[in-house]
């Protein structure tokens, strides 16, 4: 469970997050929705400890995050646009992260085999296509069986087969009890994944609840239209 308590973050005079309170429930898939510039990325970066200067508290499974980095052993993060040292091979980067995480046991290599990454292992990262890089990125996030998965635009750059594999994997890990937080602008493709919707608008939590609740609230027929109508200010 991730608890975000009265989180305030501003860049200069621009307040990005304003007293944001949010609980990301344990074992659920939470879909973080919001227009561009609403503070989604800032929120994710704060959870990951990439942003250090903020007011408020972030607790992961009851422990407040501070300067210590070890809590990230329990987090798998799939960034939207990954980049790795370009002269290393795919195998090098897997070895490196395994080395740094210092866990050889209990590895989840399902995505590596499903994405057929074995045959890419000796290629240098600069020679990979954007889609393959994204597959490496996804495989790394799931590799260590983390309790919490944070996924930024999971299907961006992936072909339909690969994005189907990734969606199945997300559902499967959720059934294994993982807490998953993801964000994406491709709503129609991903709404079937969402068990909870956290809607952020102008740095505040506008809605937190199930998909049905949001649809009932807005009176639209699906998530995409509900989100659009909220963004357009039709629902107050």
């Amino acid at each position, binding site marked *: 469970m991730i608890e975000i308590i009265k989180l305030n973050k501003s860049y200069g005079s621009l307040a990005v997050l304003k007293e944001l309170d949010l609980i990301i429930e344990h074992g659920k898939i939470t879909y973080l929705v919001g227009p561009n510039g609403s503070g989604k990325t800032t929120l994710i*970066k704060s959870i*990951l*400890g*990439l*942003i*250090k*200067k903020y007011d408020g508290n972030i607790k992961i499974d009851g422990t407040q995050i501070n*300067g*210590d*980095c*070890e*809590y*990230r*052993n329990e*987090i798998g*993060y799939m*960034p939207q*646009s*990954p*980049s*790795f*040292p*370009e*002269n*290393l091979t795919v195998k*090098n980067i897997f070895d*490196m*992260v395994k*080395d*740094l*995480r210092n866990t050889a046991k209990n590895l989840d290599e399902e995505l590596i085999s499903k994405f057929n990454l074995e045959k890419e292992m000796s290629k*240098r990262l600069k020679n990979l296509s954007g889609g393959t890089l994204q597959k490496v990125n996804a495989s790394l996030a799931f590799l260590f069986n983390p309790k919490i998965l944070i996924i930024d635009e999971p299907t961006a750059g992936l072909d339909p087969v690969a994005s189907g594999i990734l969606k199945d994997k997300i559902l499967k890990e959720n059934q294994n009890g993982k807490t998953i937080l993801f964000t994406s602008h491709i709503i129609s493709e991903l709404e079937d994944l969402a068990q909870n919707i956290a809607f952020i608008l102008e740095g505040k939590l506008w809605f937190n609840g199930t998909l049905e609740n949001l649809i009932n609230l807005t009176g639209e027929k699906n998530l995409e239209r509900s989100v659009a109508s909220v963004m357009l200010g039709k629902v107050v």
Partner: protein
Amino acid sequence: MNRILKIVKYQIKDNIRSKWLIGFSLFFLIISYWLISFTGDSSKVILSLLNIVLIVIPLISIVFGTIYIYNNKNYITFMLSQPINRSSLYSGLYFGLVVPLLISFLFGIGLPVIFNLGIFSESWIALSMVFISGVFQILIFTALAFLIATLNDDKLKGLGISIFVWLFFTVIYDGLILFLLQVFQDYPIEKLALGLTLVNPIDIGRILTVLKFDISALMGYTGAIFENFFGKNIGIAISFLVLLFWFVLPFGFGLKIFSNKDI
């Protein structure tokens, strides 16, 4: 510590395959080979090498170091989402770049020298000063590069500042000292000149080497004061201490800022 070494290991693996670094090695190799085979005179070779080391190495280190941080921005984000603390990553990236730079410098200049050791038999102290200066220039200017890139999120601004810092220490600073000496030529300001020289890492590198030749007499009274200072063990010790400070301060300051920065 262990994690720093692991990061360094993979960064070295990446950087030694970089076309740029291979290019630097070849550049140093060709220049020093060319100097040795066409001049043959050890003091001319050493002075030419010294000028290359003191002008080109700071430029390469500071520009390459700055670009390195900007190009690895997303990679830094990725690494910091792993259980790695900020100071391990910063140190890992730094030494992962400095070690390949040192290798390419020592290999490029060292190889032709080793094959022609005979001509340097009289002047090996001056020659080793060239190498020591080069090592310090790499350490110092890469640390400055990391500091500048950490302080400025804008790539163009950071690169501009880096090039200015290089220009300042190689050209502008010496110009200012000459200007001072000229304006205040009626006053005994040799000690001030000495002090000012001690602040510039490039100048220290130059003077340490030049004073190992018997040409400081040509530098007049100021030269005598310099020789008096740098020729003594305490002078050399102070020079190395200043060089060490120039490495430790920017590195430590950059590390501290990086540790508290929003990525």
